[in-house]
């Protein structure tokens, strides 16, 4: 496993990287980590910023207001999934627009959906020509297990 791409729109992953268990690896066997996120990156891992925070713009404020209004119920959250403002769809559109993100996914041996809004990007990547051979999992516990098993196979 040479490259692991973590799809984390919020960037929350930067504080949880230890959960991947990479400290247990030999330095030469450690895969390179790339985080796809909105906004700023962080020093903990290489990041590719796929878009910028639009919360200050009129569209961004409107989007957040709608999201907040709909987030209180399961029906509202599902309704929001159908709109173009759905976080998963926005992330996937942004990834497709980013050459660096596309390249990272093409080189990935493992794609990790870290948040709910990451799922569509991970799924679309492995079900398209972008990363047809990569493994894709939801959540860090699964990623840790896949990495551990790939080490055992190496």
């Amino acid at each position, binding site marked *: 496993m040479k490259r692991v791409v973590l799809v984390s729109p*919020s960037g*929350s992953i930067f504080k949880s990287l230890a959960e991947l268990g990479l400290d247990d690896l030999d330095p030469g066997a450690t895969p390179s980590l790339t985080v796809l996120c909105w906004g700023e990156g962080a020093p903990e891992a290489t990041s590719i910023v796929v878009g910028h925070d639009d919360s200050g713009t009129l569209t961004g404020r409107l989007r957040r207001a709608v999201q907040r209004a709909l987030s209180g119920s399961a029906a509202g959250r599902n309704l929001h*999934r159908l709109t173009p403002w759905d976080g998963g769809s926005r992330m996937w559109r942004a990834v497709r627009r980013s050459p660096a993100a596309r390249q990272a996914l093409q080189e990935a041996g493992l794609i990790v959906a870290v948040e709910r809004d990451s799922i569509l990007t991970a799924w679309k990547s492995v079900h398209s020509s972008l990363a047809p051979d990569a493994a894709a999992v939801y959540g860090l516990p*699964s990623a*840790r297990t896949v990495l551990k098993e790939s080490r055992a196979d190496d």
Partner: protein
Amino acid sequence: MTKQDAPHLLYVAWGYPPCRGGGVYRALATANAFAEKGWRVTVLTANRETFTMGTGIDSTLEAEIHPSINVVRVPFTSGAYQTDVRGWSFWRAHAPELWNGYRARQDLRAFPEGTYGGWRMPLEEAALRIHRANPVSLTIGTANPHVDFTPGLRLHKDFGVPYVMDYRDAWQLDVFSGRRMSPPGSRQDTWEAELVESAREVWFVNEPIRAWHAKIYPAHADKMHVVANGYDADMAKFSDQPRPGREQGLVLGYIGTISAHVPMRELFDGWALARSRSELLASSRIDIYGYLDHSGIPNDRILALLSEFREQGIRYLGPVGKSQIADTYHSFDALLLVLGTGKYVTSGKVFEYCATGLPVASIHDPGNAATQILEDSAAWIATPDLSAAAIADTLIALAERALNQSSAQRHAVQAWAAQYERSNQLLPRIGALGSPPVGTASESETPR
């Protein structure tokens, strides 16, 4: 009594080490406590992959299992814990919440509990195999999930084995809203009524939840007991020395899982207001440790909130392992107990918070059951309501206490909190169950 003559406990807990979920500590401690009292203990739990691929694990917890305990793992195949995205359908990937709802309904066929209902038959079959090989004297199921109760009922019906229901939460009661979640006559109600009727004992984590159930099942109130959570003594070796340098800026800490019920927005609004009114708090910070939801996947709303308040001295520092817990508490000057609203809500972390001796601010509805635990503490302060102004006042008062708490004062609080060590909660019940119960192994090996 030889080891072979000792009573045999079948303990059913979906979440058991290496699972890292909050309920694991109670399960681990309960099974261990019975083993230490001489019982032969078999634990029935989910397979390791459920935890390695789903919830996440704390690998250090497996070493805490009493060496005499036999752990039997039953495969758990709920779709909610299938994390290989490659195998997901188009609509699961596009509408995960909707898919989760659909899947939960599928699980209800065997047992009325979403996600876990499908586990009933494999569990019961495993319990029967265990009983035939090594007759069971007593079954304890710990919930949730409530499907953990079903092997007890099955062994009772077939062989007369007594069982105990251990509720860490409640099934029909929403502990946050206080509302009944399933109407009388529903499948959940029918199942629970049957389970309670035949149970030898029913345990609850606090008195309000026990009282609610005693009212629903008055004929069985005398077998309902409070077995509170507690802190684990081996994890709670806390210093009584205040942190040097706190005058330059305090560190208020929160350790725990942040579910959607936890009023973090109210806390952050109050915190921002308090910082505008207090120089000390303006130079202080909040450090948050833990998971951002129960499932291993961060909660979308808390992620948005952390982003919104990132300029307000609030840091999210991720999960903290058991081996670092004491050092992490020692990096704080005071603690924030932020809980969902509900008079039935205690939380497990309240006991650990008490044991630290640090000043604690309750940021929750004053009617929460946690208030009953803390009200005798000399280091406790509570917000009267969840308005930003009230929380700001509470945080300013908390800062004052944190700044002035002496080593002797902290030590006194630690001594007071010793009553909440977990074994003090369990031992009375083990003692009561200790005599070989009616219908023990020797007379119950053949089916009824």
